[in-house]
């Protein structure tokens, strides 16, 4: 297949109405999965903020489970029938879940360079945004409350919340765990742009913010002082 002959629009063979209806049908069809996902997200928020040591694995294990769920259930079984790249997105999401589970769930976080910052910094606010504010952005597009995208069952808030969590830790493999969430931010932003959804810049901006926070210590020279 000559993929280079296809444009972005070719990869999005559905309308904005169909995309929004997808989340409405998904949330209703799998109810109460969205509530369970949100509860897992809130648990991740509070454990990430307060827990230390071994308990720090909790938010990452919860989030890893959400990536696998979103990959297998949403991407493969709900999104892919509408758009064939969904299969590959599903594989990517499941892979991200497995990576997070293995790297941050099973392997203890030890050593002075690992674990959380005492000041969680912007990571906690990105997490709060993904859990509480990002779903409400759907209301700006006149979407009904039962069609909103929430952490744990929808890809966008799950990806942004993960970036927030990753900002709260030091880990040698953090870059590896960032690749798929960052890629999804660009893919989702491009999809929403093609569909003329007014909030399309949110995802790429979240990715840019994450990269900015990660890179800033090197740019400012702080890393040499630590």
């Amino acid at each position, binding site marked *: 297949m000559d993929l280079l002959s296809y444009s972005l629009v070719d990869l999005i063979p559905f309308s904005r109405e*169909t995309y929004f209806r*997808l989340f409405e049908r998904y949330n209703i069809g799998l109810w109460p999965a969205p509530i369970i996902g949100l509860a897992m997200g809130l648990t991740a928020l509070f454990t990430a903020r307060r827990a230390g040591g071994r308990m720090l694995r909790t938010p990452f294990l919860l989030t890893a489970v959400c990536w696998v769920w979103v990959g297998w259930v949403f991407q493969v079984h709900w999104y892919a029938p*509408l758009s064939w790249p969904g299969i590959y997105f599903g594989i990517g999401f499941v892979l991200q879940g497995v990576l997070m589970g293995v790297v941050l769930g099973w392997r203890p976080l030890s050593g002075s360079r690992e674990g959380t910052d005492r000041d969680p910094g912007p990571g906690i606010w990105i997490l709060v945004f993904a859990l509480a504010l990002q779903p409400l952005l759907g209301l700006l597009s006149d979407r009904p409350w039962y069609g909103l995208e929430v952490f744990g069952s929808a890809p966008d808030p799950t990806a942004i919340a993960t970036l927030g969590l990753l900002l709260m830790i030091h880990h040698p493999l953090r870059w590896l765990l960032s690749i798929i969430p960052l890629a999804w931010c660009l893919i989702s932003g491009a999809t929403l742009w093609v569909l003329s959804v007014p909030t399309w810049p949110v995802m790429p901006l979240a990715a840019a913010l994450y990269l900015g926070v990660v890179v800033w210590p090197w740019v400012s020279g702080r890393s040499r002082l630590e």
Partner: protein
Amino acid sequence: MDRSCVSSRRAFLAALAVVPLSFLTLPGNSRAEDGQPLVKSIPSTGEPLPVIGMGTWITFNVGDDPVARDVRTDVLRAFFAAGGGMIDSSPMYGTAEAVVGSCLARLDRPKGLFSATKVWTSSTAEGLEQIAASERLWGLPRLDLLQVHNLVNWKGHLETLSAMKADGKVRYIGVTTSHGRRHPELARIMETHPIDFVQLTYNIEDREAEARLLPLAAERGIAVIANRPFQGGSLIDRVKRHPLPGWAREIDCTDWSQILLKFIVSHPAVTCAIPATSQVDHMVENMASARGAMPDAALRRRMAADVAAL
């Protein structure tokens, strides 16, 4: 229907097809007869085909959504009520084939359907499985037209399609492109392979096909399906901000979509256009393009110039 009647009718229509659609290029605008939708002959057989068909890209990819499927069933009902024929889809269009099949079943397999889909895979062997899946999704034992989508593995698939046609498993075969992709390669296929149809992008804004492909299709007796008649929506969005030109009344147009579609189907080499819509009122407007007066060559030039100046 008696097979011999069909055969003699086809022979008669084939004979008519030898006479080019010259009425469209004669001085003065032509008119579809007696309020009936305009049809053109498929050159390879002479079979008549309504000049306005229907595309399914995006509009019919709605998955299992029962509300959206109800609306698409109404759209198809309006299409056939207005004398529509060709429905074009592809395995690339997500659930579009399944939705079309579901709607057709709910409409009790309307008469006049001309089913057109594509094969879209890099594997020749997988192509056969894909075609079988398309027949199942459409709910049809045999599809009218199978096309190689976007020239993907066209050599392998054309062999398959030619064999299927010889065995009576498909009535027509063709090749598609869109967005002006790979026109030189498409021209070579048209010159060297016995295909019945070619599908390409042609509209009042994108007229690249006029230079080589449309004259070649006329010369080789290949039917032409024009896709992207509204340039993916951007063209109609642009022109509808302006009032209808005075000449719109000369060709019985009451909105811009009819102007754009009549421009396309009045080209002598174009057999049909396949606008896509998910709204019944738009379908009714589109289908009205097949009726009334059609622009002649002089008016077509003026239409193109006026739209370019908007």
